[in-house]
């Protein structure tokens, strides 16, 4: 590449560099400096380890996001495979309905969880009639879990369906001809075939759950997930430095998880050809 071309290319790359700097580099740099400017200085970064409240919040968020990811993948694989392989009346409408929550803000999802499992909710009314006791779990981890799974399914189901369509049916037939039971076919053929899609959509699901705020804000009266903790530090306690440090920690953990998933997917793709 000669100098002249390099010159042209650097002009062409300038707009994206500007956007990158304005919307990513500068805010991140600012966040880092703000995080270090509090009473604790750079120790704000380790505060989440030493302060039980932050650590609990972090662990709760990771556990919640991981279990939401696992549950969402399990539900989506079953329903995605079913929707891809069966043609029935109303199939298209059903797919459209399943993808409907994509448009909902987190607050609406939280509101729906309350209507289902809140103090005036459907589940509460039914359990009162049946058992005489109201079952209310909307404002707990269970409610949050339900809400997160609900808004995660559409993203994952669509990816799984696209991947399932590309599976070679002859592979399953070959496995069956060799004596594999339906369960073995799932374990040895279908799941390995879907692995790249599972990892990719699982990573997105995990990252979304880690950072979800609206639903948590609506429901979380007695739970602290990390985005809620950041919000509380920022608005109520005016501890801006701590909020910034926690934000960076949240970002880093999610980023590490996504990268781990990507390298795992990469090796799978290389092995599968």
């Amino acid at each position, binding site marked *: 590449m000669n100098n002249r071309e390099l010159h042209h290319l650097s002009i062409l790359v300038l707009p994206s560099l500007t956007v990158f700097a304005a919307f990513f580099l500068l805010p991140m740099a600012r966040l880092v400096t703000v995080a270090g400017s509090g009473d604790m200085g750079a120790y704000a970064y380790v505060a989440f380890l030493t302060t039980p409240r932050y650590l609990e919040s972090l662990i709760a968020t990771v556990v919640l996001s991981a279990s939401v990811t696992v549950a969402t993948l399990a539900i989506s694989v079953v329903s995605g495979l079913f929707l891809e392989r069966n043609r029935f009346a109303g199939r298209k409408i059903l797919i459209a309905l399943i993808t409907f929550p994509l448009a909902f803000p987190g607050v609406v999802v939280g509101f729906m969880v309350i209507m289902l499992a809140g103090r005036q909710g459907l589940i509460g009314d039914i359990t009162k009639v049946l058992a005489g006791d109201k079952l209310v779990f909307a404002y707990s981890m269970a409610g949050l879990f339900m809400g997160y799974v609900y808004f995660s399914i559409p993203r994952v189901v669509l990816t799984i369906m696209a991947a399932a369509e590309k599976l070679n049916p002859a592979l399953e037939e070959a496995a069956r*001809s060799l*004596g594999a039971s339906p369960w073995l076919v799932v374990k040895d*053929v279908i799941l390995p*075939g879907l692995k790249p899609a599972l990892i990719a959509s699982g990573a997105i699901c995990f990252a979304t759950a880690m950072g979800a705020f609206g639903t948590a804000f609506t429901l979380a009266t007695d739970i602290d997930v990390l985005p809620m903790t950041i919000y509380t530090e920022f608005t109520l306690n005016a501890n801006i430095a701590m909020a910034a440090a926690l934000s960076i920690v949240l970002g880093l953990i999610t980023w590490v998880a996504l990268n781990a998933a990507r390298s795992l997917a990469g090796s799978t793709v290389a092995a*599968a050809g």
Partner: protein
Amino acid sequence: MISGTSVSLVECAKTFPDGTRALSPLSFEIEDGETVVFLGPSGCGKTTTLRIIAGLESPDPGGRVLFDGEDVTQVPIELRNVGMVFQSYALFPNMNVEQNVAYGLKVRKLPGAESARRVREMLEMMDIVALKDREIDQLSGGQRQRVALARAIAVRPRVLLLDEPLTALDALLRERLRVDIDALLRRLGITAIYVTHDQAEAMALGDRIVVMSHGDVAQVGTPRQIYFQPSNRFVADFIGTMNRVRGFVSNGVVRTDAGTIPWNGQGEEEVEVLFRPENLTITEPERGHLTGVVETAFFLGDRTRVIVRGAGDTVLVVETSDRHEFREGEKVGLIVGPDMLTFPDGEAP
């Protein structure tokens, strides 16, 4: 090595849910150890037949599939003990060569030592021992199909089912693997059912060939019967190259627009005469049964393929080992050998 299983199809028809008839009721016996080739153009029902035998499709109610006289119609494929080889190889990409071959043995929970011994035997038989630790994406098409064959026969299936196994390979590999498959089938003595649209493959491999067309059996016979005595025009046209000339039979000759061909038959009727390229001899115009003009000639080395115009309704294809260099526009005579066939004119093809 593997004891053969006889296969019987009894009134097996297949109608798909959308109402298309893929297969008219078919009854057919395959002897143990026999290699039967189902041959026909795409959509003729050959693959459907194979899938019914495999257990991947069930025949319409009333149809039955028997293995050694035992009704297996309701037995799912995983319990039928059949070996399958696919056009797309269908090797498991998440397993290496050895694991692929061992898969059926693993499913059957064969003890490790016995399984390893059997895998080794299969790899040796297919000449792929050196590839045993390779990943599937590191193999060529020919190697993949060898692995697929090894995987299918490792479980000692009752019947080996091959669905266009050579179609995805290039010509040279196809020829080599075909020879190897032929040797393998003879050596194992296994009952094999082979589906293809390639008549050369069918001729080379089949003890018997079932030619199919539009869900019906057009003819069943040995490769020689199919080639030399096609029982209808579809078979005659589908197998090899066939020339056709219309004419009128009377007094031991067939009169055509381009000349008169001797014929050892009775009766008087409009007929269509069919003969193969190698059945024609080129001679001087005045000595031939038919006369025509050379349109083009392709020199193939050991022989020359000459396209002759004006001797029939369509051009005639002649193959000759004559060293003469045929030129466009050259007038030639054609002698029709005795191995010609006649069909009453107007018979449905």
